């Protein structure tokens, strides 16, 4: 269901800069992404083969197994996770992976819910910065080094 409250709604706070990757369909991280290179491996996903590592990942909502949390945490540990994940709906599986990575490794991957109109304005390839308050701005600088 669409988010009723005001956005941005910060599920996991942090800052990140990276190139936007818009997903045409939601991605299940468990079975959908490998953590060695951060590549989409779900053969049924239209963007199979794309690298999510270091990108600001924009998708409508999450899907799939609750084991997705550990895939995200493992990817954050390995440095192959997205720089940030921006969605139109809350997703506790994705949030939990980011929370666990912060707790165990002290590594922050921001997870933010934005209004659909704002997500629609984020084009693949644009370099943006996600603020600790969940705001997303066009970035003048190069992406943060991984």
């Amino acid at each position, binding site marked *: 269901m669409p988010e009723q409250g005001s956005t941005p709604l910060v599920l996991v706070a942090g800052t990140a800069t990276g190139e936007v990757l818009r997903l045409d369909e939601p991605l299940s991280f468990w079975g959908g992404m490998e953590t060695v290179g951060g590549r989409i491996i779900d053969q049924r996903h239209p963007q199979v083969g794309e690298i999510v590592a270091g990108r600001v990942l924009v998708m409508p909502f999450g899907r799939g197994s609750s084991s997705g949390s550990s895939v995200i945490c493992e990817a954050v540990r390995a440095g192959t996770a997205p720089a940030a994940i921006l969605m139109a709906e809350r997703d506790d599986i994705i949030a939990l992976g980011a929370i666990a990575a912060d707790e165990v490794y002290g590594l922050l991957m921001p*997870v933010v819910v934005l209004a659909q109109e704002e997500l629609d304005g984020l084009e693949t390839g644009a370099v943006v910065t996600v603020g600790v308050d969940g705001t997303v701005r066009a970035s003048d600088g190069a992406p943060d080094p991984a």
Partner: protein
Amino acid sequence: MTLRLEERDEARLAGVEGPAQQMASRVVTRLAAAMGADELLDITGAHIDSCLYHGQAVLDFANRLADDGARVVVPTTLNVSSLDLLHPEHARGDPEEARLSRGLMERFEEMGCRPTWTCAPYQLEVRPGFGEQIAWAESNAIVFANSVLGARTNRYGDFADICCAVTGRAPAAGLHLDEHRRATVVIRMDGVSVDLLDRDVFYPVLGGLIGRLVGKAVPVVDGLEPGVSEDRLKALGAASASTGSVGMFHMVGSTPEAPTLEAALAGHRPVEEVTVTAADLRAARDRLSTTTDDDLRTVSLGTPHYSVAEIGRLVELLGDRRVHDGVAFFVSTGRDVLHEVELRGWADRLADAGVSMVTDTCTYFTPIIQDVTGTAMTDSAKWAYYAPGNLGLEVVFGSTEDCVESAIVGRVVRDEGIWADA
């Protein structure tokens, strides 16, 4: 919405009960905020899936909690792992990964979890009662607990399950609350033969179809004869939680929160009403197979873990016949069920018939099957959905009867008659 915490939560967050409680509380609290919960609630039990090794992160998390002395504060059962401790001869995986898996399992035992190693904790002697708030992981167990037992859990998974068990607290959100348990989608049958409605195989196929139709919504199945068995409800739920993200379903006259359709809908109008035909069911059945090759090499039953009644049915179907020499036949179950099966003398009969029992794990993700060429057959929609991707094999879905008859003759045979239009 702001999260209101009780004093005991604040104290744990401040570290009064030590670093393990502090970290677990922080995870539950942060999760609650991310879910939009406005408070935490007490739970009376937990079922943990974090004990399945899939990478360093889960192990690091468990080590951190266990090293800090974490103990569960509610009765807590453990899901399958990637090792069959009772039948080590099945092991075909990497020995180093097996060592890490065993290490992870031990950490959860140290924290006070019961080494039940089953994905069907609802088949254990003690199980949650109606209305109990619990924190369960494992998709098939979650949907069974909510739908069949009337207990209340969200779809918990890695990290959250153990943190809820250690704190005895869970976010008051989702399926813990009345308002999210009512059905929004009504499912009815039209033109499905009475014969098919009376078969076990109908239920996993219907479940697979429902998962695709409703995603994560709560459906209610209307119009079936009341009193559908737990094993059939289990198969339906497991399938719907594989092809979709169903955490709860109702079946009028068979599940406890659906004595009537109106009760399941809690007085609201449904958002959607769907009519399922025999053709829809045939298509759903066909989507569960990846091949038409009838060269059968493997049969795998017991996903979720077979119950005593399901094993009894298998013994009956086999009679005094033996599985074909070219077919490996596996049945996965919990160690408690296996014990009961041994007491009844069935384990010896199954062994004589060429059936291998698997406990503590499951054949759809653990490398137990030796020959992944040819065709594997299963009566489980969940196995059919996941095994091809995990193991790289081809699958044919069939009824339990189909699986047994095929195993005996050594090639795939299916009874097509029951799938015809009424």
